């Protein structure tokens, strides 16, 4: 089976050479993406078969500077490999339909496709490499591939700014990972993850340092709250298929890192679990609250990624608590919930971003205030987006509900098994999750209602336009995947099984932990049957009583215009005002002075307090460094003074030490 994976990598390799040969053109775009898709299909078949009939495969070869390098396909790696390959396949196919619009505008696609392939290959390698040094090398390739894919439309200022945000965040993440892996290497003497796991005797101080830098480093990449700031700037800057890829799987590399750290390091301190729980809850609730206040469609979806990362973090923290208090069932529930939500989020977030890409192309811009009535213009995208919206809010028939259900179950089981303050805190976490579910419903009804329903606010005539063929196939494919996982959850549970086997303490879990979720399909099928029956009755009845179209009831006001529909900021204004301490709402408008006002404009946008915090830090560093700029004054006499001063200073130090 490994041959398929190698064939996949070989095809990717070919794809790295192809852009250099052919010229910029639609054929290059189609050829490259089809080649990528073929390679990913092979990889996908390999990882699916390896997961379903699971046996641990490992390849070991020696490199002088890095010691024994291990490429291992254990449960966790295979699951993430599956997720990465699935969404890269969707992104490549989507790119076929999406990129021609840019090629017509004269943007060169060769470099972009090269870095797109580099990103896909390095993502797959990140999941399977078990050696810390090679992991860092491949991690950096991923970062570079992602950066250069983001800055595709380099001529726009905010695209460059978004790319810069991404690059700085990734570098900070890499520096923290240096510390984490170096200290581990120092303690255990080798670079391999299984040696880190085998070495049991970590003294608390080094373990604390490793865990904090590891979680912080991977947390920056995943987008937990204090470090999420790059996400809403980088993802809108990227073209749709790249921002879909970034949101769906690139930030999941951070989650993979945290899961890997949790697997190999001993869990003695429960405080980390509670800390992660707190950070995840804050990320989730504030993430969705910020999303509610956004007007740009991609920025809204980016903030939503922060929310879903928070939900995954909740699952991971319960798993960590399970390991600390030696409860195998909690470990199984926590990790299953987290991993499943990673897969589910990857699918519906990819679906939503690709849908947003189609909307972006049609509306030539991201601002949802000027949209409306797109359901009649791009119906296939509308259906796909609706399925994505329902599953991201975690509503029943689709896959979001399955993973949130497992996380709820892990909360309640943890409340049973743990004592002291634990039940209370976990109940708060469950209520937080519910509160966030409500906010998500509000946010996505706003987004879907404003963008797809009603009439177009910019007054554009709503005639049906062709959607790119391949992108609609991808959208409907992902939507059907959401439905399948949602209605038949036991398929995805078998994918998570092998990964759970490896977590310390989770191997002898009782099999019934997944019992209710396994048989949920009967419930959902019954529910769908009920809907079908009632719909049939409705159609039959309305067939007899007849239907007719008329003007919407305007309470007697006859000259209603599309501009009078509810706007996005109006829809969310009240809720956003409630979050005022954390959500700063900047409003620019001039009050009426003269009797006959000439022209009035109103503009409001939501400021992210944490982003302002980081920008303040940046300005502080700039001011601090600026204060020291007198050193290179240009006058040679100052330089001579520096020489003599240095000699005197060192001599004084010599006397002291």
């Amino acid at each position, binding site marked *: 089976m490994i041959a398929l994976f190698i064939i996949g990598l070989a095809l990717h390799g070919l794809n790295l050479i192809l852009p250099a040969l052919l010229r910029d053109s639609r054929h290059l775009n189609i050829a490259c993406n089809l080649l990528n898709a073929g390679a990913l299909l092979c990889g996908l078949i390999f990882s699916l078969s390896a997961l379903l009939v699971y046996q641990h495969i490992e390849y070991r070869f020696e490199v002088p500077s890095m010691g024994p390098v291990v490429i291992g396909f254990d449960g966790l790696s295979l699951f993430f490999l599956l997720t990465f390959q699935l969404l890269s396949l969707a992104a490549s196919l989507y790119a076929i339909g999406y990129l021609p619009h840019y090629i017509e505008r004269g943007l060169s696609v060769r470099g972009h496709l090269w870095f797109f392939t580099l990103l896909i290959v390095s993502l797959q390698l990140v999941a399977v490499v078990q050696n810390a040094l090679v992991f860092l090398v491949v991690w950096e390739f991923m970062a570079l591939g992602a950066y250069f894919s983001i800055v595709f439309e380099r001529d726009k200022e905010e695209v460059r700014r978004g790319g810069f945000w991404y690059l700085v965040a990734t570098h900070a993440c890499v520096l923290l990972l240096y510390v984490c892996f170096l200290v581990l290497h120092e303690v255990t003497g080798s670079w391999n993850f299984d040696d880190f796991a085998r070495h049991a005797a970590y003294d608390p101080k080094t373990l604390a340092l490793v865990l904090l830098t590891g979680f912080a480093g991977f947390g920056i990449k995943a987008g937990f709250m204090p470090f999420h700031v790059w996400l809403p700037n980088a993802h809108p800057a990227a073209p749709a298929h790249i921002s879909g890829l970034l949101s769906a799987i690139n930030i999941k590399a951070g989650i993979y890192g945290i899961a890997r750290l949790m697997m190999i390091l001993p869990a003695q301190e429960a405080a980390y679990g509670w800390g992660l729980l707190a950070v995840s809850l804050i990320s989730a609730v504030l993430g969705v609250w910020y999303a509610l206040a956004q007007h740009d469609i991609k920025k809204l979806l980016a903030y939503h990624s922060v929310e879903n990362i928070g939900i995954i973090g909740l699952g991971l923290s319960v798993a960590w608590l399970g390991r600390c208090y030696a409860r195998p069932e909690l470990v199984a529930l926590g990790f299953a919930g987290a991993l499943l939500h990673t897969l589910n989020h990857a699918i519906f977030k990819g679906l939503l971003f690709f849908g947003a890409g189609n909307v972006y192309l049609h509306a030539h811009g991201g601002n949802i205030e000027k949209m409306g009535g797109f359901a009649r213009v791009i119906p296939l995208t509308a259906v796909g987006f609706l399925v994505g919206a329902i599953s991201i809010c*975690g509503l029943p028939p689709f896959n979001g509900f399955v993973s949130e259900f497992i996380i709820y179950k892990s909360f309640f089981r943890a409340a049973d098994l743990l004592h002291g303050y634990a039940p209370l805190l976990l109940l708060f976490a469950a209520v937080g999750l519910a509160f966030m579910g409500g906010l998500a419903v509000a946010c996505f009804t706003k987004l879907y209602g*404003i963008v797809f329903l009603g009439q177009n606010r910019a007054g554009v005539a709503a005639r049906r336009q062709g959607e790119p063929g391949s992108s609609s196939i991808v959208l409907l494919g992902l939507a059907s995947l959401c439905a399948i996982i949602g209605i038949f959850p036991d398929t995805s549970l078998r994918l998570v099984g092998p990964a759970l086997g490896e977590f310390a303490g989770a191997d002898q879990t009782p099999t019934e932990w997944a019992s209710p979720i396994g048989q949920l399909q009967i*419930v959902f099928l019954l529910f769908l049957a009920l809907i079908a029956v009632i719909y049939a009755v409705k159609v039959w009845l309305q067939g007899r009583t007849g239907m007719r179209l008329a003007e919407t009831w305007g309470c007697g006001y006859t000259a209603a215009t599309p501009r009078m529909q*509810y706007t996005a900021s109006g829809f969310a204004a009240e809720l956003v005002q409630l979050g005022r301490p954390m959500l700063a709402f900047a409003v620019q408008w001039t009050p009426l002075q003269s009797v006959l006002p000439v022209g009035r404009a109103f503009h409001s946008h939501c400021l992210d307090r944490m982003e302002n915090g980081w920008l303040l830090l940046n300005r502080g560093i700039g001011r601090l460094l600026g204060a020291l700029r007198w050193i290179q004054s240009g006058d040679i006499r100052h330089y001579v003074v520096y020489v003599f001063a240095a000699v005197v200073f060192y001599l004084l130090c010599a006397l002291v030490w």
Partner: protein
Amino acid sequence: MVKLSSDPLSWLTCALFFAGAPLLTGIINKLKARLSGRFGPTVWQPYYELRRLARKETVYSTSAGFISRVAPVLVWCTVAFAALLLPLGRPAAVSFPGDIILFAYLLALGRFFQILAALDVASSFEGMGASREARFAVFAEPIFFFTIGSLAIVTRRYSLDTIFAAISWHDPLFFVFVSVGVLSLFFLVSAECSRMPVDDPNTHLELTMIHEVMILDASGFDLALYQHAASLKLLLYSTLAALMLNPFGVFGPAVGALVFVATLLALAAALAAIETLMARFRLVLVPQFLLFGTAIGILNIVIFTFSR
């Protein structure tokens, strides 16, 4: 394990439940009329309404899309399926550990489609109603999760079917816990089912409505579905409140049913009294009102866990 109850009687009670929903609304309207000195419509008036609507012609707005056609069916089905989960004396039609989460999220699904249907007809009034509904739902969810969630944690059971069976009266502290639970459920009823303190059910000024304005453009059989779903949801929440007192557990199935119906009527009377005596809250105060409900829930569970 997912249990579809084999006992025909539980399915029968569910059918009775669906049929009886409009009756409760009728009773509340009758009581309100009596309290304000009017004779008021007959108790069966809602049934006549439903029959009339089922026969009328359906009118769709020009700007409405497929959402307006699908939404009423989904709204009704979610509430109906949620009703299947409730144990009315007999074991619940459908039950599995963790179905309180399914119960909450089904109602959220119904709300999702109702809001979308409101936004579909491109009218500013319906948009206003949708925005208010989305806003208050955000604060209603925590109340439900606090009451039922704390009950689940306290009784260590996670299926609606078995939670209420574990409630026993002879533990005085437990009684306080349950009564506060009923009180916070009452807050939920006023927010979810458009009862007086939060929303005025029979106002005609579109600007003040929340729930009625969302179905402004519904007509014919769609409107029938919406209205039946609304009354079904009212019955649903009142049953939850009634079951908190665990009538079937304490008095057995027969007498329990009588006590259950009596509590329902008491709740209906309370609702009617409030609607005649109070005016509607200003919209700005409603989140505060609901947060107050949540605060009671938090206090309740904190006192209960620390007192043991």
